[in-house]
């Protein structure tokens, strides 16, 4: 267990910049998630921490010790691979014992440690099985036990849940989180799944194009996104392009005036979380109230999405909790939409956005290069 410090970490592959000056300070015992679409550099960053990739520039310190140039086998970082990477010719117990043998632990002490690690991940009875005789979830737990048994200073998780089916993923992510909490081990996880990141992490690092976009708690990222990428990647946002024309006053390109939080004068984008918007009578008395036409209604079960066009260029999605048995808005209805000024976050710059849009959830899950 240790503090993990990353300073100006950069990696170039030929002319491509895979990771650009990533800096991060992970507290002892903290669970930090690197979140971003495939190709954003999160896996490269993790592999630089593990020592599989030598950074072009920057430093990595584990427990205050500079490990930037140390090979993987001299770092004390346990890693769980996306494919689990279990040794196919060794039994579960032998897989878990491998790291201890490499550490020259006396033969007599190994079985006890292996048993303890397997009990930790609730695999006590499967010690003599071969990896191919286990289910995906069990293999994943062996990989976790194998990484934990060496008592690493940091635990590195590379998309650890992406090969599990959806149901299993829900339970496993809670299990991993609780185990991490119990052991108090400093952990860095890479994922493209924002829900996974939100559930498991103490702190999130949103990356895109090799750079860190924002570092913060779940609430920081959701309520105060730093830019339109974060606003669209973590949760959903309505983005309205235009300019800030005065303190707390914004005007979209189509000329719709909006009361908002303060932002720098000039071109900007307003981000609105769909669930902060109200329609119909509920919109009365809010700082912003517009009348628009319902263009699409999507019934999602727990909630309902209503797409409302408020000007020729501006359309917003309103996400309503499914609370009443009352009639739903119909396509073509004229309807009031409203939101408080505090829900309208101004993101500076980016006057190039012409149409308001909702950036949908995360992109396709894909294995990241390299």
């Amino acid at each position: 267990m240790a503090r993990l410090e990353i300073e100006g970490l950069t990696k170039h592959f030929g002319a491509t910049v895979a990771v650009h000056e990533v800096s991060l300070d992970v507290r002892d015992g903290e669970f930090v998630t690197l979140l971003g679409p495939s190709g954003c550099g999160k896996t490269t960053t993790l592999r630089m921490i593990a020592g599989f990739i030598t950074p072009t520039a920057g430093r990595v310190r584990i427990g205050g010790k500079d490990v930037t140039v140390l090979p993987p086998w001299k770092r004390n970082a346990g890693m769980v691979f996306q494919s689990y990477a279990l040794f196919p010719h060794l039994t579960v117990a032998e897989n878990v014992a491998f790291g201890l043998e490499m550490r020259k632990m006396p033969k007599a002490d190994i079985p006890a440690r292996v048993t303890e690690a397997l009990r930790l991940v609730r695999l006590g009875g499967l010690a003599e099985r071969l990896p191919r005789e286990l289910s995906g979830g069990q293999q994943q737990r062996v990989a976790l036990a194998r990484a934990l048994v060496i008592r690493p200073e940091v635990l590195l998780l590379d998309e650890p849940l992406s090969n599990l089916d959806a149901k299993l993923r829900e339970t496993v992510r809670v299990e991993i989180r609780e185990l991490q909490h119990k052991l108090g081990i400093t952990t860095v996880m890479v994922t493209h799944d924002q829900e996974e990141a939100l559930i498991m992490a103490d702190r999130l690092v949103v990356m895109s194009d090799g750079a860190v976009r924002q570092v913060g708690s779940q609430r920081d990222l959701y309520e105060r996104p730093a830019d339109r990428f974060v606003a669209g990647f973590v949760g959903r946002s309505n983005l309205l392009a235009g300019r800030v024309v005065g303190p707390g006053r914004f005007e979209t390109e189509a000329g719709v005036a909006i009361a908002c939080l303060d932002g720098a004068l000039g071109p900007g984008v307003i981000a609105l979380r769909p669930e902060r918007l109200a329609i119909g009578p509920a919109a009365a008395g809010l700082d912003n109230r517009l009348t628009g036409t319902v263009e699409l209604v999507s019934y999602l079960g727990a909630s309902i999405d209503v797409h409302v066009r408020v000007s020729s260029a501006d359309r917003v999605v309103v996400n309503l909790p499914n609370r009443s048995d009352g009639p739903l808005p119909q396509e073509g209805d004229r309807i009031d939409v409203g939101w408080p000024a505090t829900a309208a976050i101004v993101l500076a710059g980016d006057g190039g956005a012409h149409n308001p849009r909702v950036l949908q959830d995360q992109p396709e899950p894909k294995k990241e290069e390299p």
Partner: protein
Amino acid sequence: MATLDRRTLGRWALTGVAGVTFGFILLPLVFVTWLAFFLQAIPSFPPQGYSLKWFFSIAENPRFVDGFLLSLQVALIATTVGVAIGVPAALCIARYRFWGREPLGNLLLLPLVVPGIVLGTSLYVFHVEATILTELPILGSIAALVAGHILLVIPWSVRLVSASLAGFDRSIEEAAQNLGATPVTSFFRITLPTIRPGIVAAALFGFVVSFGNLEMSMFLVGAGRTTLPITVLQYLEYRIDPTIAAVSVLQILLLGTAMIVTDRFVKLSRVV
């Protein structure tokens, strides 16, 4: 019902073709084995009786014993060296992108497609030239014979080891290093055991190919030295008694046993 009929018909056709093919492969072996126990010296039907004397006559003929020992010796050395070359070669070709990688891969498979006669002639000419040039006793030496046989083993070992590397997940090597293994340790503890089936199969096939080689060996053996297949051929020039059949039976038994034993350790059908 027409589809069902067609499916039944298809299954029968498949069984038929498979049966004919198996018969085609196995029938000569069956007849050779039968012949080995015939009483009379000139093979003719029906047999006049059965005897084991041809098997005893092998042991009494020093040329067969010497030929067998030489073949065994050559095949064992050639297999060991050939596999030792083939494994790293297959690893390099599978792992690294370097200039000339594909030509190298094809070059290593070449002995498989070059006819044995051609291989033998060219090696013979090469050995003659090399002997003249270096004044070393290369021509007809056991070393030269073994070197030729190594060429036969290499394509098999490259091919079979490459096949077992095809599905190899390299992150298991990274996992080993992550757990504290140096690259050397991770190679011997993790990589090698994982591709072991391919290596065992390569050794088996290399051995079989080397042990049974006739065409190339004929050009490379020195005076007074013959491998078992050459001994068999020379014997056949003068006699056709069932001794040859008995030799064949022993060879079939030897190679068959090797294959069955190997198959117990690695499922050959999975690698080849």
